[in-house]
């Protein structure tokens, strides 16, 4: 893999997307709104949180209200990588590969303690948070987080998307961020 | 004017795509070029007022036969070029033979008077009705025979596959 986890700074979220300070134009706002309302998640569900994600998809909470019920298991088509559950060190490279394969613009949400930080599994085989291998936009705490918390994470992602300038993905900061993860 | 343009462009397309078909390394592309060729031929059919045949041509060739070809290529992963190369000499000989054949027939037919377009043209000749009448009156027996041919073809294919599974 060639990543030394210690060398990777934990990303400082907010700066990354409001960094340049230019205001959003109307077009950007419209595009942001459109993107925010049409998130196709890629459920990277490995364990318990996956079951709670099922509950979020199901009738009682209905992720579909946000236009996000169309799951796309192909990373090419997904907008949002939802990492739910423990990511073992064996899985890390796979996760990174899936992230690389996703088409821009892409967002990542780490659902649950395991994905965000390793949770109780501070063991030799578990990756201590997926931000060691891919940049994360929103963290959702809980083990597993209740569906409300997952929806809250989705809402946070929507806010993020709405504020994101179109050019962010070409900005040097973003490139730098990816480079810090040894991507591209 | 439109007639001429369409005739010549369709002919050009047919010839170019068929030439590309025989020369392209990738069999997948060959099939697709032949498909283009067939479409232009279908266009010529329509120009000749044989719409029925044109559509049948598309349904049969494009809709079935070429799909079968594509299917076989895709499924068996045959699109990769054949590894053994023919010697240049034989290739040259093949092309020369083709050209000479063309030249000879051209020369032979150049001076043949095919006659001009008839003064009276039956507009209905390409219609399904006319064709049906011909098929089911004059050519009824050949028509039935073709269906037998089809049946035997089907049985043949099934037998081929049967044998295959028995062997394995």
């Amino acid at each position, binding site marked *: 893999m060639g990543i030394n986890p210690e060398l990777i700074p934990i990303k400082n979220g907010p700066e990354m997307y409001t960094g340049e300070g230019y205001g959003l134009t109307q077009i950007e706002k419209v595009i942001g709104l459109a993107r925010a309302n049409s998130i196709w998640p890629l459920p990277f569900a490995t364990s318990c949180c996956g079951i709670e994600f099922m509950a979020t998809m199901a009738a009682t909470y209905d992720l579909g209200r946000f236009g996000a019920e169309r799951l796309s298991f192909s990373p090419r088509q997904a907008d949002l990588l939802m990492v739910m559950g423990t990511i073992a060190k064996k899985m890390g490279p796979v996760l990174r590969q899936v992230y690389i394969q996703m088409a821009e613009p892409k967002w990542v949400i780490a659902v649950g303690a395991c994905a965000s930080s390793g*949770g109780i599994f501070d063991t030799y085989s578990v990756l201590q948070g997926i931000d060691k291998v891919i940049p994360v936009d*929103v963290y959702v705490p809980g083990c597993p987080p209740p569906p409300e918390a997952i929806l809250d994470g989705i809402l*946070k992602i929507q806010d*993020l998307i709405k504020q994101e300038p179109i050019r962010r993905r070409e900005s040097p900061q973003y490139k730098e961020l990816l480079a810090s993860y040894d991507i591209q | 004017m439109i007639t001429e343009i369409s005739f010549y462009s369709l002919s050009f397309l047919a010839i170019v795509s068929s030439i590309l078909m025989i020369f392209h390394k990738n069999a997948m592309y060959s099939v697709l070029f032949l498909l283009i060729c067939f479409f232009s031929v279908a266009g010529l059919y329509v120009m000749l007022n044989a719409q029925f045949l044109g559509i049948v041509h598309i349904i049969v060739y494009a809709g079935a036969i070429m799909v079968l070809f594509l299917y076989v290529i895709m499924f068996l992963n045959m699109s990769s070029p054949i590894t053994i190369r023919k010697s240049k000499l034989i290739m040259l000989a093949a092309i020369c033979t083709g050209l000479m054949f063309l030249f000879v027939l051209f020369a032979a037919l150049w001076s043949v008077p095919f006659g001009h377009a008839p003064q009276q043209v039956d507009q209905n000749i390409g219609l399904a009705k006319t064709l049906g009448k011909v098929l089911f009156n004059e050519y009824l027996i050949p028509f039935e025979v073709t269906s037998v041919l089809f049946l035997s073809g089907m049985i043949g294919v099934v037998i081929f596959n049967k044998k295959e599974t028995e062997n394995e």
Partner: protein
Amino acid sequence: MQPLSSRSKIVSNKTMSWSERLYIPAILAGLKVTLHHLFKKKVTVSYPEQTRPHSKFYRGRHVLKRDDQGRENCTACGLCAIACPAEAITMVAEERQKGEETLYREEKYAAEYNINMLRCIFCGLCEEACPKDAIYLTDTISTSGYNRDTFLYTKDMLLEGALPETRIDIQARRKGQREGAM
């Protein structure tokens, strides 16, 4: 294999009846079911606007309690940190100085009290372990955030308000436990 008990029964019936072979009746029955649901009342809770009521014992975000006089209950004994399977709680104890009696109930108090909410698994063991009635889980869900650093909840984020009306009512949880005692 001989039967091991006398209570078994074969439940899968794999022979299809004549009408089941026809596909259509079963499909129509299915269509009827779904059509019925099409007009049924929807069960969805529109989350940000509506919320599902949580149980009184819900294990959500933590709170550090104060007592009736607004003093912090925590005495920094460290039991919660020991009980925490995720090792999410860290604290620094300090001796209470003169004049701080209105702030802290016990002689020792937590100068720093951090919970790493990303590590926390909301198992409730800290609440159980606390001998001083100081840490409780509440029925509010813990919110998500953009930055890993923001999840290190410090004492002032965890501590409930000093004024009586800003305190979080966890009476139900306590009562539930006391009920159990009897």
